[in-house]
């Protein structure tokens, strides 16, 4: 992907550096840009594996009855699909790829605070991913608990649950170290003159995210260790037959795993906040409101985990408190949507692939967010709990939100990262197919869920066949769109037109340096005097 680029302009980060050539030069480099690309490549591979598993599940669900895979295989598939997509794709996703690549550049630094620790985090990620892949083979078969590893089934299941849990633990470690690195980087390495409130909004969202990564991940770490200890030594923290409490497991799991949703979505919001002012050529509306809403989402998001457990057995008072706090999170999220729309108002909007992905992000995020309120309300939750409604809701947030923001980000920063432009026409065609496929795939799930289709079943009653059929067709449309998008990006990285330093007329610091950026990012020390979004 990079071989042709070295001729672009000498001294870019893509040229050989250090004492090793080729692939070893990449694997030993502590350059934040190279580490970002390493994450991008790994995440792309795991994403495609996760998509394939999802595709097979949709193929199975095309018609009622057993088609291609049996129930146990299906259980393994949705578990592995979840583990890969959550722990290996969307949680590291934007922060590890674009955070690594652009955070130092956007704040005018030469690298992150701890470059070697940064490379070490990537290696931990790879080890964790390898263990996760390993858990799918050998032993007594792929784990079948779902990605949530709910006790006591995760303690009784004979499948490779221990390995899968260990993988999630190791991946969490990588996430913690990346968060730690970003916090110190943002505190200590901002360019001269870049006060906190002159910092661009993507770094701000990464800052809020990093605190969640650091403060929430250890809880799931210890919980997963306890599951491993239970399976290995029969300790019984969560096993009712030994006096343990399975509901306690759910609490501990969601104390992390709900904030993890904000680890995914906050950087996505940050990306969209960078893109919209650029393509509207307008100063972002309500800079401080966006900053504060990011911090508010991170803060309140820590306190809403109980809404995953409304039907598990909690006191009425806790249920009301968690429901109320869940509704509170909607406020800062809505503030962001208003800010994006207000930024577009009276702007000279340039509609290209990046912008199309961004506005479909807003559209889908709103559907995902509002259906989240249905789920957060106690009465409706009982009706739709563990149905396809939940599946549709979180795919609208995780894929329609974070996934589309990732696609927007890769198109937005592609010229900067690889020094070449992507094909706009093919990009737009890809977007149209991805967007229609997404809607066809996930929207019918809301209706199926309201009708009572439970999640995690490999078979269904005939009355659900219409919705499932449309949904499966949507899956194949979506996969076609993703293939077109990936093809376009790979081809453009080799053969695209050369990119200028600032193809979109952006105002943040990454657009002031050549594409692709030189090894040390900036030739001279950066001094910031203006606000990041001062469009004329």
């Amino acid at each position, binding site marked *: 992907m990079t071989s042709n680029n070295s001729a672009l302009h000498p001294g870019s980060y893509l040229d050989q550096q250090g004492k090793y050539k080729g692939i070893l030069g990449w694997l030993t480099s502590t350059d934040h840009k190279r580490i970002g690309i390493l994450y991008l490549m790994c995440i792309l591979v795991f994403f495609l594996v996760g998509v394939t598993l999802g595709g097979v599940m949709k193929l199975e669900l095309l018609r009622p009855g057993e088609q291609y895979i049996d129930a146990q295989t299906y259980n393994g598939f949705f578990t592995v699909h979840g583990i890969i997509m959550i722990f290996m794709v969307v949680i590291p996703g934007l922060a590890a790829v674009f955070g690594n690549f652009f955070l130092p550049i956007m704040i005018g630094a030469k690298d992150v605070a701890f470059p070697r620790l940064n490379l070490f985090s990537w290696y931990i990620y790879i080890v964790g991913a390898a263990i996760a892949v390993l858990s799918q083979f050998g032993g007594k078969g792929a784990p079948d608990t779902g990605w949530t590893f709910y006790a006591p089934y995760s303690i009784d299941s004979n499948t490779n649950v221990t390995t899968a849990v260990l993988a999630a633990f190791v991946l969490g470690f990588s996430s913690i170290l990346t968060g730690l690195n970003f916090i110190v980087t943002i505190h200590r390495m901002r360019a001269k003159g870049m006060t906190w409130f002159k910092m661009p909004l993507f770094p701000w969202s990464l800052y809020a995210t990093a605190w969640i990564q650091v403060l929430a991940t250890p809880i799931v770490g210890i919980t997963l260790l306890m599951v491993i200890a239970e399976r290995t030594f029969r300790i019984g923290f969560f096993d009712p037959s*030994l006096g343990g409490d399975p509901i306690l497991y759910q609490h501990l799991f969601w104390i992390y795993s709900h904030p993890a949703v904000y680890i995914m979505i906050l950087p996505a919001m940050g990306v969209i906040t960078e893109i919209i002012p650029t393509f509207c050529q307008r100063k972002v509306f309500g800079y401080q409101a966006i900053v504060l809403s990011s911090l508010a989402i991170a803060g309140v998001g820590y306190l809403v985990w109980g809404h995953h457990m409304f039907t598990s057995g909690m006191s009425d008072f806790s249920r009301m408190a968690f429901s109320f706090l869940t509704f509170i999170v909607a406020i800062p999220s809505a503030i962001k949507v208003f800010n994006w729309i207000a930024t577009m108002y009276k702007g000279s909007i340039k509609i290209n692939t990046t912008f199309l992905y961004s506005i479909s992000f807003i559209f889908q995020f709103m559907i995902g967010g509002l259906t989240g309120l249905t789920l957060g309300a106690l009465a409706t939750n009982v009706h739709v709990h563990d149905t396809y409604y939940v599946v549709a809701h979180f795919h609208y947030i995780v894929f329609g939100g974070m996934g589309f923001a990732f696609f927007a980000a890769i198109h937005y920063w592609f010229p900067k990262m690889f020094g070449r432009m992507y094909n706009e026409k093919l990009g737009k065609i890809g977007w149209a197919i991805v967007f229609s496929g997404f809607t066809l795939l996930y929207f019918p799930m809301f209706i199926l869920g309201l009708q009572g289709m439970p999640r995690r079943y490999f078979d269904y009653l005939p009355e659900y066949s219409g919705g499932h059929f449309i949904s499966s067709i949507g899956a194949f449309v979506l996969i076609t769109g993703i293939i077109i998008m990936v093809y376009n990006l790979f081809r453009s990285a080799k053969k695209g037109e050369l990119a200028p330093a600032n193809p979109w007329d952006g105002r943040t610091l990454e657009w002031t340096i050549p594409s692709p950026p030189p090894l040390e990012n900036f030739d001279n020390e950066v001094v910031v005097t203006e606000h990041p979004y001062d469009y004329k």
Partner: protein
Amino acid sequence: MEHTANHEHRDDKGSKMGMWIFIFTELLLFGGLFLVYAVSRAKFFEDFHIAAHQLNVFVGAVNTIVLLVSSMTIAMSITAIQKNQKRVALMLLGITLTLAFVFMVNKYFEWGGKIHHQLYPGSDIVLTLKHGQVLFFGLYFFMTGLHAFHIIVGMALIGYVFFQIKNDKIKPDNFQLLENAGLYWHLVDLIWIFLFPLLYLIT
């Protein structure tokens, strides 16, 4: 923890900040266990009371004193290096390492005794006990085990720092790595200060 960055970049404050954030994560890691302890104790108050009598307060108290003194000696070694007293600093770190070793030896005999009496999770005897007692011994081994693992990591870190001082890599004007090792060691000490009363003293 990484100490200095590449690119001839050195930032002692940043490095210390990174260590503090790492300490937050460690506290939350043990926090999860304390939560499980609190819930189980509230649920099985009597069983915890009976099971806790099996632990030897004397051994626990000795280990507490050992760790507290070792925390003092590593703090003193930081002062010594600031005053350019390399030999004193090395000696104090040596004492810290020895005390850590004493802690582990104590732990070995303590655990050994329990295992000898079949008081470990999953043993035939433990499985006949009441639920709360099973949980108590589970928590006892898990919490002190995880703590002992941190002692071992701390010993490796202090050993590394020892040689860095010996080779003049850590100097009076560049001792952040030593200070970070000290912070980590205080954390290990602090967690024990909570574990000791929770497991040994409250009966």
